[in-house]
């Protein structure tokens, strides 16, 4: 039986609760779990102050409620499964290295910053900086997968080094800004200036988007590797069409102000 957390007192100010992770709660009883420390604004508090806790610990935990003010859910998670039946706050799955986080609703900014492994699925929308580097850091997401079924904000995959970010809907400006490597797939409309500062890595845009002048058209072709990625995303539930799977893509090389070894692939409808 898994541990279940139901929010009974909505925090009025941000609550930092990196203990909400199967990794952190492994082996603890319900009483001990309730006493796990959290930071409420500028004060110390306990999980039991906000959640009703039931069940017994195993590698799965369920969180229910509007958790949009609760930060660092699943942070540093190394395994197990974490379900959010509601919304999640900022820094969801920060630096996680394994396991699966699934959010039924929306998630805030900084989903999976600097994560190295595992998978985060957001069924609703996500905020800015999905899979990004934190401010002052040069390297963003370094492994794993983030799938947002809805829309996402600006600077997704900022400084990303490895891994896969897929946005089912639209995304904001500067997707993949300063990206080092890895793969971003945007099924909806991407905002302005995708790939600015791109060194290596792949940004796939399924809808036409205006590119920076520092990207150069190479050819229109069938990128076989992309079929593996799209089949993977289809398996995980994103609505990948046959036209996207088997179609032609324009390849644009850039960013010429950097290594010029990255690429933006534009689907040709």
């Amino acid at each position, binding site marked *: 039986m898994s541990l279940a957390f139901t929010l009974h007192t909505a925090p009025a100010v941000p609550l930092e609760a990196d203990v909400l992770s199967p990794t952190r709660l492994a082996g603890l009883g319900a009483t001990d779990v309730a006493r796990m420390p959290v930071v409420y604004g500028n004060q110390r508090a306990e999980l039991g102050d906000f959640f009703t806790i039931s069940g017994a610990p195993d590698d799965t935990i369920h969180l229910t409620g509007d958790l949009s003010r609760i930060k660092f859910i699943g942070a540093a998670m190394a395994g197990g499964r974490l379900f959010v039946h509601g919304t999640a706050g900022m820094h969801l799955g920060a630096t996680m290295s394994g396991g699966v986080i699934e959010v039924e609703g929306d998630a805030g900014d900084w989903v999976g910053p600097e994560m190295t492994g595992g998978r985060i699925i957001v069924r609703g929308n996500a905020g800015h900086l999905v899979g990004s580097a934190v401010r002052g850091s040069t390297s963003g997401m370094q492994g794993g997968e983030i799938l947002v079924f809805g829309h996402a904000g600006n600077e997704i995959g900022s400084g990303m080094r490895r891994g896969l970010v897929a946005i089912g809907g639209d995304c904001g400006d500067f997707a993949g800004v300063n990206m080092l490597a890895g793969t971003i797939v945007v099924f909806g409309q991407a905002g302005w200036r995708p790939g600015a500062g791109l060194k290596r890595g792949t940004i796939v845009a399924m809808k036409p988007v205006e590119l920076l002048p520092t990207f150069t058209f190479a050819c229109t*072709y*069938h*990128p*076989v590797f992309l*079929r*593996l990625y799209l*089949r*993977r995303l289809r398996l995980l539930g994103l609505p990948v069409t046959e036209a996207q*799977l088997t179609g032609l893509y324009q390849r644009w090389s850039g960013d010429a102000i950097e290594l010029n070894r990255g690429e933006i692939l534009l689907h040709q409808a």
Partner: protein
Amino acid sequence: MRIGNTEIADTFAEAFAMVGARLLITAETAEWALAAGRSVTGFATSIIGCKCEAGIEATMAPDDTPDGRPGVSVLIFAMNEEGLGKRLVERVGQCVMTCPSTACYNGLVADKEVVVGGQLRFFGDKFQIAKLLEGRRMWRVPVMDGEFLVDDRFGIQPAVGGGNFLMLGRDQRSTLAAAGAAVAAMGGTAGAILPFPGGVVRSGSKPSSRYKFLHASTNDAYCPTLRAIAARTDVPDGVGAVLEIVIDGLDLSAVEAAMRRGIHAAAAAGALGISAGNYGGGLGQYQIHLHPLLAGAEEARA
């Protein structure tokens, strides 16, 4: 022992420990995938002269391949891990990368791996791109029709080579018919391939020669034309042709399964007798005795 009118000799096939790998080759069309499959398994009939043995295991429907395109699965066997690694790099590089529209994936989850794409990537002259998906590293090597996609590493595992049986027939035509039926019945056996042309070998060999510079020579005991003069003959009265089918497999059970299917099909197609090739049991690590092999099949059928 008899199957219908076919006499099954009380003997055994002597098989050897090898190391095997499986390649999944895809292409834009089934024809190009098959072209690559045929090329990569070319000149790979016998370890004696070809350094490896290889064959097409099966054709694959698009839904069964990693990239959703038509494909073939290929098995390649060598005597040791180092040798297999070299053969894979050579053959994937020369026969798959060169073939239009292809991609080449590892088809074997195994504890041991050899680096293949990680070697071939250098052909990309620093334009190659690495991709990592679900822990699987792949290389995109730029080529003139787009990109050649190849897995960084391929799994290798202990395998069994040299499983075999001999079909003894009245003449060449009827023996060929029996061999053809056997090959057709053995096709699609998971984990097994028939490395010789069309699956059949006519120049069975013994591991010795009267020439000092030769290690192997014709199996005179099974040459019908030498019945009257060979020191020993295993060609019975009324037999005018003998053909052999050699089977390599990823494990012994795959080899045995293929042998059972093939022997029954050859018998049904009119082979006068079935025997097997061995060296007295002194060379190979495996002995596949025909009577228990087929008795097991009969029991399983019952």
